[in-house]
C-alpha cells in the first residue's frame, strides 16, 4: 500500500458539507421526520384556535341572559360606546354650556370653585355625600360637534390632578397643580387658530402659561365651544386577598362656578345653550345656571377613553381570544424539550456531536429550527384565534376596538412568545437532559406565575412583582387596551382589561432575558459535559 492511495483528510475541501446550512438542514430533517412532533405543533395551533373560540363564545351567553338592559337591535344586546378620533372606545358624556364659534377665536374663563357629590355607603338606595372623585373635571372645551366621540380639546381643573389640558380622549398634559378655591381661582384659556388649539392657564389672569398645543385634524370651520362639567363614576375598590379585587361603581356629580367669561372671534349665536352630551352613556345628571356673568355648571360622566369592565362585564378585549396560547404553549414546550431530550434518550446526541463537533453550533441550529417552527405555530394559532374569535363574538358581545397595529402586535408578540418559550424549553432540556423534569420546569416557570399573579391567588402588590420578574411577564404582549393615567379604574392583571405591570415588549424582553441565561448555561454544560 502506497501513500498515494490514501487521500488525507483536508478540512478545506469539506466546508460545503459541514457548514452551518448543512447543520440547519440536518436539524430540520430530524424535526420534520418525527411525526409526533409535527402533530404536536398542529395540535398547538388547533387548541389555540379552539380555546380562543371558546373564550369568545363562552362570553356571549351572558348577553342573551340579560334582559331589560339597554338594547340595540343591530348590535345584539349591548350599547356600544362611541369611538374617538383615534379609533378607541371612549366615554363622552358631560354637561355642555355651548355656543358655535366660527373660524378662529378664543374663550377665557375664571373658575372659582369645584364641588361635588359622591355616593355614600353601599346598598340599593343611593345616598350622596359631598365630595369629589379624583378626576372630577370642569373647564372650557372646543369640540368639533355635539356628536359623542367627536374631536375636542379642553382646558380643565380637576379635583386631585390640578389644571390639565386634554384632547381627543387620550391626550393629557398637566398645568398648574393644586385645587381650586374661591381664594385661589384659576384662569383658563383656549385659542383656536385653524386646526390648532392652544391651551393656557393662569393664577391671576395676567401672567399666562401655555399648557399645550394640539392639532385636531379636520376640525370644521364652525365648532362648538363653551363650558363643561363632568364627573366620572365613583369607584370603591375592596381588595380581598386570596379572592381578588372588586369594584363598586356608582355615578357621581360635580358643580363648577365660572365667572369672567370672555370670548373673542365670531360667536354667531350670541347666547348660551346648555345640554347633556352623550346621555345614553352617562348618568344624564347635569344643568346650568347663569346669573350675570357667573355660571354654575353641574355635570356627570367623563370625557376620556373607555376602559374594559365598566359596562358590567359584558365587554371583552381581543386578549380573550388568545387564551388558548397557554394550551398551545404547553404543546410547543413538550415538543421543543423532546427535540433535545429525545437525542439523549436514544443516544442520537453522540452521532450528532460526532458529525458536528462544534457543540455551540449544534445548539444554535436546533434553536433556530425549533424557534422558527414554534413561531409559525404561534403565528398561525394566534392569527386564527383573533380572526375567527372576532367573527364569533361580533354582534353578540362588545369587543373593544383596537387598531390593526395593536392586533398585529398581539399576534406577532404571541408568536414571538411561543418561539422564545420553545428556545427556553430547548435550553432547559439541554441542561437537565430529562424530558419530564425539563417540561415541568418550563411549564411551571411560565404558566404558574401567570396563574398566581393573574388568577388572583396573591395580593395585588405581590402579583405585580411576580408579573414583572418571572417569564410570565411576556404575556404583556397580549394586553389590548393601554392603561390610562387620566382614568380611574381597576388596572389589575386579572381584571377584564388584563393589565400588566410592564409594557408589551418590555414584558417579552423579560422572557428573552431568562431564555438568554438558560441558553448560556446550556452552552457551557453542553461543551463541558460528556454527551
Amino acid at each position, binding site marked *: 500500500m502506497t501513500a498515494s492511495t490514501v487521500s488525507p483528510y483536508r478540512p478545506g475541501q469539506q466546508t460545503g458539507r459541514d457548514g452551518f446550512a448543512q447543520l440547519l438542514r440536518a436539524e430540520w430533517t430530524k424535526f420534520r421526520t418525527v411525526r*409526533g412532533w409535527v402533530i404536536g405543533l398542529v395540535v398547538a395551533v388547533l387548541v389555540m384556535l379552539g*380555546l380562543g373560540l*371558546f*373564550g369568545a363564545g*363562552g*362570553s*356571549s*351567553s*351572558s348577553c342573551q*341572559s340579560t334582559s331589560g338592559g339597554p338594547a340595540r337591535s343591530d348590535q345584539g344586546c349591548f350599547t356600544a360606546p362611541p369611538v374617538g378620533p383615534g379609533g378607541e372606545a371612549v366615554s363622552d358624556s358631560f354637561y355642555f354650556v355651548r355656543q358655535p364659534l366660527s373660524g378662529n377665536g378664543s374663550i377665557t374663563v375664571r373658575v372659582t370653585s369645584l364641588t361635588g357629590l359622591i355616593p355614600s355607603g353601599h346598598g340599593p338606595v343611593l345616598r350622596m355625600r359631598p365630595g369629589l372623585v379624583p378626576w372630577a373635571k370642569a373647564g372650557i372645551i372646543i369640540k368639533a360637534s355635539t356628536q359623542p366621540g367627536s374631536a375636542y380639546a379642553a382646558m380643565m381643573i380637576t379635583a386631585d390632578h390640578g389644571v390639565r389640558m386634554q384632547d381627543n380622549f387620550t391626550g393629557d398634559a398637566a398645568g398648574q397643580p393644586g385645587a381650586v378655591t374661591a381664594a385661589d381661582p384659576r384662569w383658563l384659556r383656549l385659542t383656536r387658530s385653524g386646526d390648532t388649539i392652544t391651551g393656557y392657564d393662569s393664577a391671576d389672569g395676567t401672567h399666562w402659561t401655555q399648557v399645550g398645543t394640539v392639532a385636531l385634524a379636520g376640525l370644521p370651520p364652525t365648532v362648538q365651544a363653551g363650558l363643561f362639567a363632568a364627573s366620572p363614576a365613583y369607584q370603591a375598590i*375592596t*381588595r*380581598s*386577598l*386570596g*379572592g381578588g379585587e372588586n369594584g363598586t361603581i356608582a355615578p357621581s356629580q360635580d358643580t363648577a362656578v365660572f365667572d369672567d367669561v370672555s370670548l373673542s372671534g365670531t360667536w354667531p349665536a350670541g347666547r348660551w345653550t346648555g345640554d347633556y352630551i352623550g346621555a345614553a352613556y352617562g348618568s344624564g345628571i347635569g344643568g346650568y345656571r347663569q346669573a350675570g356673568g357667573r355660571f354654575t355648571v353641574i355635570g356627570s360622566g367623563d370625557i376620556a377613553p373607555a376602559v374594559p369592565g365598566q359596562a358590567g*362585564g*359584558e365587554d*371583552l378585549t381581543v*386578549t*380573550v381570544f388568545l*387564551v388558548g396560547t*397557554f*394550551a398551545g404553549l*404547553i*404543546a410547543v*414546550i*413538550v415538543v421543543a*424539550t*423532546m427535540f433535545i*431530550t429525545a437525542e439523549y*434518550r436514544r443516544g442520537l446526541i453522540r452521532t450528532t456531536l460526532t458529525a458536528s463537533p462544534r457543540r455551540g453550533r449544534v445548539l444554535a441550529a436546533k434553536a433556530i429550527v425549533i424557534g422558527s417552527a414554534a413561531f409559525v405555530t404561534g403565528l398561525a394559532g394566534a392569527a386564527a384565534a383573533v380572526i375567527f374569535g372576532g367573527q364569533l363574538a361580533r354582534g353578540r*358581545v362588545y369587543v373593544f376596538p383596537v387598531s390593526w397595529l395593536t392586533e398585529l402586535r398581539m399576534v406577532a408578540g404571541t408568536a414571538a412568545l411561543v418561539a422564545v418559550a420553545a428556545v427556553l424549553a430547548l435550553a432547559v432540556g439541554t441542561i437537565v437532559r*430529562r*424530558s*419530564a*423534569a*425539563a*417540561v*415541568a420546569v418550563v*411549564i*411551571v416557570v411560565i*404558566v*404558574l406565575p*401567570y*396563574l*398566581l399573579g*393573574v*388568577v388572583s*391567588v*396573591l*395580593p395585588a*402588590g*405581590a402579583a405585580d412583582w411576580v408579573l414583572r420578574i418571572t417569564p410570565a411577564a411576556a404575556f404583556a404582549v397580549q394586553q389590548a387596551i393601554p392603561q390610562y393615567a387620566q382614568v380611574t379604574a381597576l388596572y389589575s392583571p*386579572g381584571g*377584564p382589561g388584563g393589565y400588566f405591570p410592564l409594557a408589551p415588549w418590555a414584558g417579552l424582553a423579560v422572557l428573552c432575558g431568562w431564555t438568554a441565561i438558560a441558553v448560556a448555561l446550556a452552552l457551557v454544560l453542553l461543551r463541558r459535559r460528556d454527551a
Partner: protein
Amino acid sequence: MRLPGWLGLSEALHAEWTKTRTIASTGWLLLAAIALTVAVGAAAAAATGCPSGAVCQVDPAKVSLTGIDLGQAVVAIVAVLAISNEYSTGMIRITLSAMPRRTVVLAAKAAILTGLALAAGTAAVLASVLAGRLILSGHGFTAAHGYELLSLGHGDVLRAAAGSVLYLALIALLSLGVATAVRDSAVAIGIVLGLLYLFPIVANVVGDAQWQRHLEQIGPMTAGLAIQATTGLSSLPIGPWAGLGVLAAWSAAALLAGGLVLGLRDA
C-alpha cells in the same frame, strides 16, 4: 416453591418499592416538592398584609397552602417517571415478564406512589401551616384583629390541611394514569400540567359567570383545591369534599384509561 400472596400483590409492592427507592431522583424530587411547597406558601404569607383600617378578606389557611400549586407539579413528575422511566429504559418488559398481571403492577405502583405522596404531602403541609401561622401572626392577622391563629385544632383548617395532603396523593394517581396511557414522560407531564393549570386560566378569561362556575367545578385543580378554603364557603363554586371528589373522579378515570391501555397494548 412458595406460592405468591393474594394475586402477588405483596411481591409486586415489594418490587415496586425497591425500584422506586433505589432511584436517586425519587428522593430528591420529593424533597424538592416539600421545599418548594413550603417556600411558596411562606412567600405568599409574607406578601399578605392588610392595610390598617381596610377590610381584608383573607383566608389564612388557603394563603399558607398556596405552595401546593407548585408542589403538585413536582409530585406529578415523580408519578410520571414511575412508569415512563420503565418505558424509556425498556425495564417495563422485564417488569411485565416477572409480573404478568398488569393490573397488579399498576395497582402496586399506585399504592407506592400514594404512600410517597401522602408522606411528602404531610411534611409539606405541616411545615406550610406552621410557616403560615408564624408569618401571618407577625403581619397583624391576630386574634386582636379578628383572625384566629392558624391551628390544626380548628376543624376547617384541619380539613384544609388533610385535604391538601389527599389532593397531592390524587394528583400522583392522576399523573400515573396519564403516564401509563401515553407512556412518554414529556407528553404525560405536559398533559397533566395542562389539565391542572388550564382550567383556572380559561375560567378566569371566560366572561360568562355560568361558564366560569362550570369550568371551576370540573377542573381537577380548581375543584380539588376547594378543599383549602376555610372562609367564604358559601361562595365556592363547589363544596370542599365534593371538589376533592371531582379530582378523585379524574384520577380514577386516568387510572382506568391507563390500566386499559396497559392491558391491551404490547409493552
